[in-house]
């Protein structure tokens, strides 16, 4: 696909997403917004796991840190746009700090370290009641106003989130096109070779990890403001697993992979829930079983995720 077709298709898709919200019910717009918010986090995870090849199982922890920061700061009266960089920066720094011990061990241990980190953050959210409100959570989180426009309504907040998602996507796109993006890919494809070519794999691993965390932190800010209430539950490590699966199912290392994967993980089950067709009703209950088996099948036949299907077909027909 050449660049112009790509841009046109993207613009059309965004326009469709913007227009369709006017015709959807409140709950459906809420779900769409929830999807966009999760995509912010999975997009970051795609950088960490998909582009740089570092398996992280703690994305929900950063998502949660962003959300709690937002809840606390927004309730203190901070403007939304001031909370965003703070959340991003805090997650970035925490990501760096967590990366250091994890780097001391072999690559796949990073996954366990992040998983454990997620468990710990979750426990802290639940037990440090003075800060986090414990299991009662924090309610009454305000939605922002932007240039005097109240974004409290469901459609207005959706446009706000969608617009922000596009900006974040732009940042990621630019990052991936820079020499950094290439170094991340080198780190993923062959760290040993990369090191012998002067790629500082320690620095890039930490960066990939911390930038991914920062994206999750930003997503968390939007989440807190969307749901208007947070408690530890949504930041349990099982959310991290779902986020990773969303990235992989969509297509890790594919720019639009997280958007597709997150739709499958977040929107599809809700669609099934709303359906009354008998076999879809069956799917409501068995959804995660089918999803789990599909993940296994995908790993066996299409490890690059759904968006790699074209490449896969190319390769089968191609010279190799």
């Amino acid at each position, binding site marked *: 696909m050449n660049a112009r077709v790509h841009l046109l298709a993207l613009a059309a898709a965004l326009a469709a997403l913007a227009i369709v919200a006017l015709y959807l019910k*409140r*709950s459906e717009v809420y779900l769409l917004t929830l999807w966009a918010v999760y995509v912010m986090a999975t997009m970051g995870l795609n950088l960490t796991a998909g582009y740089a090849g570092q398996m992280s199982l703690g994305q929900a922890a950063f998502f949660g840190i962003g959300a709690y920061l937002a809840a606390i700061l927004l309730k203190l009266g901070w403007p939304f746009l001031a909370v965003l960089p703070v959340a991003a920066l805090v997650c970035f720094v925490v990501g760096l700090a967590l990366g250091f011990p994890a780097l001391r061990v072999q690559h796949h241990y990073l996954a366990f370290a992040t998983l454990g980190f997620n468990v710990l953050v979750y426990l802290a959210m*639940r037990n440090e009641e003075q800060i986090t409100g414990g299991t009662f*959570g924090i309610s009454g989180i305000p939605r922002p106003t932007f240039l005097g426009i109240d974004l409290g309504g469901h459609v207005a907040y959706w446009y706000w989130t969608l617009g922000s998602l596009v900006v974040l996507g732009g940042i990621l796109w630019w990052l991936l096109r820079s020499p950094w993006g290439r170094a991340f890919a080198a780190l993923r494809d062959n760290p040993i070779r990369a090191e012998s070519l002067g790629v500082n794999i320690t620095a890039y691993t930490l960066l990939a990890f911390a930038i991914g965390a920062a994206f999750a932190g930003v997503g968390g800010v939007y989440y807190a403001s969307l749901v208007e*209430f947070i408690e530890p539950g949504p930041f349990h490590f099982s959310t991290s697993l779902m986020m990773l699966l969303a990235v992989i199912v969509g297509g890790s290392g594919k720019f639009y992979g997280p958007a597709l994967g997150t739709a499958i993980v977040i929107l599809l089950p809700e669609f099934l829930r709303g359906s009354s067709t008998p076999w879809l009703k069956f799917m409501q209950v068995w959804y995660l079983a089918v999803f789990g088996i599909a993940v296994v099948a995908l790993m066996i036949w299409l490890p690059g995720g759904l968006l790699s299907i074209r490449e896969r077909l190319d390769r089968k027909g191609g010279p190799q």
Partner: protein
Amino acid sequence: MKRSTRLIAAIGFALAAAPVFAQPIKIAGLVELSGTGATSGTNFDNGAKLAAKEINAAGGILGRQIDYTSGDTQSNPAVSKALAQKAIDDGAYVVMGPVFSGSILVSMEETRRAGVPNFTGGEAASITQKGNPYIFRTSFTQAAAMPKVARYIKNGLKAQSVDIMWVNNDFGKGGRDMIVKALAAEGVKVGADISTDPGQVDFSSAVLKAKQSGGDALFVYTNEEESARALRELRKQGYAKPIIGETTLTGQKVIELAGEAANGAIAHVGLTADAPIDTVRKFDKAFQQAYGTRSDHNGIKGYTAMYFIKVMTERIGKVDGKAFAAAMHGAKMTVKDNPGVLMDVTFDQHGDLDRESFLTKVVNGKQVVVETLPPLGAK
């Protein structure tokens, strides 16, 4: 009136009513069918379904059938919120659930905004303290139940000090705060204050802590599974002092899971299928027939809530959520007129309810009611 006119009137009425007949009343359940609240949610849902079936079989509400659909909140507040919005979008007349306090605190903002009455199974005191005119309970609040427990610990058990083991979620933490307050009011000392995790499996250190503390009794306030595990560990370590709980501890599921170890446990319950009341016995039988298991208190919550809807809707004579909510405040429903509500009940201005409650004990693997306590308002 002449026969013919009467006939014409009847036909006219039938014609006018016909489209209404075709239009069922939508009632949406937001229930925990998976996640940590699965046991509670499933029971609540089953209770509601059973009541809806009975009401429909008997001609429905104001002649209209109930269309009850339930969605799974996965014990997750964000999903609860989404489901609440969906229920409102779908035009639900009344929303039932969720049971978990953390979830209802989020989803009730949605029903409030839309002006849809919302029955909850949640027991956290804060739910009805937010001035929400659309929220109604189906059971006691912890604020109402704990003083009864504290009174029993002091007068019934003659305990000077008591250790507390609670689960660190909104339910457990809320209850713990209430019992500490109630015990202080009764002049009973609190010994060890032991927090446990939702889903915790290993209670050995928690139980040892209680044993070492040496209080005269132990108050256990955790969810069903954790209660069972705690009871088993208490038995394993040979804990010999009285074990008291509120609602969950002597529940059907706990007895089933804890087996022998549940024997001797005492609990105050607002609702129980073992209540020595005819209507409850009838409900118990019907529930067992429908689902093969006995209902716990959450099943009764769902069941009675559905009948509250029927009674109040017929009382106001129309399907109107706002009028319904207004009429619910200060309402009184009696078994004599409406057997489906199972026990006489009154609602106050906050949406809290009041009725009789029971002191129960597990004897030979069965919950036995040892005392019926009067409603708080009947003193």
